[in-house]
């Protein structure tokens, strides 16, 4: 842990930050890695070339970090440490020095259509990415295939002004397109995480930037949840002793209470993948049970479970909308169950040993449908587990400190969760495949995270 914190300190205190980079203060290109698992050679190497214009340089830093956080590349630092300064002093490509301290520009404001590919190959890069200004307010990102010695793809996008709230999202979307161009897989750069802190709902970019308050009332809030289209989210607020569910539009910030809620304690909302239905938990004197409501027409409350002497709560839809995983105390302690979306065919989902396995809670179905993440009490503290939907095998993912409330990124590979591993409870992100872990937000008391799907462009406009 100490090593990890040290790494962070180095990151944020790195000397690469210049006044003109104020947009973004932690540069990643020093090659300091936060992760514990570091396997060079396993992932393709990538160089993101320096660029000189201030806005583009900010874009490059955000882009580099996104690509690094994708955990799919080994980002390579150009020799010479502060490569930006070096190339600023000596623009243009330059052959590597005899001692191997090859320094290079090659990027620059005018995107190079050809690069010194052998040089980058020698550095271990499989891909080189160049950011350049296009015509008007557009930017061009060129993805070079170093091994093939040519351009893999040229990506163009409108780039809002540096101060525009849409600037960051535009870069994040470019980063996802770079990932798509290089490896043919979808990224998670253009996503945000909702979370609760001090009873309010906040949103933060997946790279830890741009934290924003999205709650618009003084009522204590809980359990934010995204709609699959990324345009809306839902959450619960305490109102006069009731739990009320709200729907809020991302773009306008406008919100409305969900019809048929507000007379009881309604909580843990979950959108069906088609966005027409909201499943939730309702606590009454009979106990807590699962309901659905048609949010398209604001009608048709339906009860899915009848617990009576036990509780059913925390629904999460499978991505095909056919099934709902949930928590039930029917066997005593809360455990993870599954049923058809209409409430039929209820059965145990995550196996447990009666009398031995601790309470299991907070299930979230992964976007690829293959796993369900949840947390389970292990020896008096909580740990994150993953259930394989097909084999129903359960795997423990965390073991350091208390870890809870996992939420999947759209790539079904990254996961945000709450952990006190650093001494206080805060939000972390783990790459399930490599085990690399990074703090999302270094603030105490942040909890109940909900990771968005890939965000549509209109989500960038703010009220």
């Amino acid at each position, binding site marked *: 842990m100490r090593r990890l914190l040290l790494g962070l300190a180095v990151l944020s205190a790195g000397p690469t930050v210049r006044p003109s980079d104020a947009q973004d203060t932690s540069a990643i290109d020093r090659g300091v890695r936060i992760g514990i698992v570091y396997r060079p050679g396993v992932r393709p190497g990538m160089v993101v070339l320096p660029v000189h214009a201030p806005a583009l340089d900010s874009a490059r830093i955000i882009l580099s970090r996104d690509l690094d956080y994708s955990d799919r590349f080994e980002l390579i630092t150009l020799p010479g440490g502060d490569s930006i300064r070096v190339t600023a002093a000596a623009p243009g490509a330059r052959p590597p020095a005899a001692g191997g301290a090859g320094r290079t520009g090659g990027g620059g404001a005018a995107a190079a259509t050809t690069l010194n590919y052998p040089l980058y190959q020698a550095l271990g890069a499989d891909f080189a990415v160049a950011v350049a200004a296009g015509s008007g307010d557009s930017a061009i990102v060129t993805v070079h295939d170093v091994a093939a010695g040519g351009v893999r793809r040229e990506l163009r996008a409108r780039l809002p002004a540096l101060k525009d709230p849409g600037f960051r999202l535009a870069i994040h979307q470019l980063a996802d397109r770079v990932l798509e161009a290089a490896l043919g897989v979808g990224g998670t750069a253009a996503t945000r995480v909702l979370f609760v802190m001090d*009873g309010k709902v906040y949103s933060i970019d997946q790279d830890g930037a741009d934290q924003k308050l999205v709650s618009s009332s003084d009522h*204590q809030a*809980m*359990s934010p949840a995204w709609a699959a289209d990324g345009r809306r989210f839902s959450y619960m607020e*305490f109102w006069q*002793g*009731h*739990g009320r569910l709200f729907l809020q539009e991302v773009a306008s910030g406008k919100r409305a209470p969900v019809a048929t809620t507000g007379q009881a*304690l309604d*909580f*843990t909302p979950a959108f069906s993948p088609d966005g027409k239905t909201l499943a939730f*938990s309702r*606590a*009454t*004197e009979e*106990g*807590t049970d699962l309901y659905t409501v048609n949010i398209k027409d604001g009608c048709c409350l339906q009860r899915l479970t009848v617990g009576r*002497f036990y*509780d059913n*709560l*925390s629904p999460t839809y499978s991505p095909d909308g056919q099934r709902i995983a949930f*928590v039930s*105390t029917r066997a005593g*302690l*809360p455990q993870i169950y599954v049923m058809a979306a209409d409430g039929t065919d209820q059965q145990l989902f995550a196996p447990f040993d009666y009398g031995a396995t601790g*309470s299991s*809670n*907070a299930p979230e179905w992964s976007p690829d449908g293959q796993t369900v993440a949840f*947390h389970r009490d292990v020896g*008096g503290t*909580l740990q994150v587990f993953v259930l394989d939907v097909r084999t129903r095998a359960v795997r423990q993912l965390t073991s350091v400190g208390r870890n*809870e*409330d996992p939420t999947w990124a759209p790539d079904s590979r990254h996961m945000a969760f709450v952990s006190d591993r650093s001494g206080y409870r805060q939000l972390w992100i783990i790459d399930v495949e490599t085990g690399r872990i990074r703090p999302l937000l270094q603030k105490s008391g942040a*909890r*109940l995270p909900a990771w968005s799907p890939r965000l549509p462009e209109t989500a960038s406009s703010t009220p």
Partner: protein
Amino acid sequence: MKRLPLLLLSGLAVAVVAACGGGPKPETPAPAVVNQDSIDAARRAEEERQRAEAEAREREAREREARQRAADSLAALGKSTEAVRTLVATMIHFDYDKAIIRGGDAAVLDQKVAILQANPALRIRISGHCDERGSDEYNLALGNRRATAAKQYVVSHGIDGSRIETVSYGEERPLASGHDEESWAQNRRDEFEILSGGENLKQP
């Protein structure tokens, strides 16, 4: 609740424990009858012994409460509206991850029953709370069980259910901010709040 007619204190407490779901069985301690159902007894021996122990503790607590209550009811004669309000607001507490009314807290609820009987216009809200150890969202369900357990007790003693609202705040509104058993024990509670009819309260 079927046992309501017998107004013996112990009978009441047992009825309530039973009403609160999955609680211990009514008295008649098993150990006295040794020669019957030996197979069944063997299978459940350990369980029964634990229950008997728990019940013995509870019985002791009840007897203590009974003595206490006799003294209290005399003292209560001199109580003002303010004092009655304080009695209404007296909290009850729970074991970790449990929603069963403790033996000692039954007397606290008996006081509230008496006050509600003496003041027919009085309406209250019971809010259930949890400590920070469990899951945040599960604790809403647990707090709901705790609030409901207290309401069921009061209703089973003859109070109209429409006079009592319940709500759960889970672990969202802790009283004590520490991260130790002392704080947790304080936070696992039901709070009682007057909704209306609390202006002039008669003594029970």
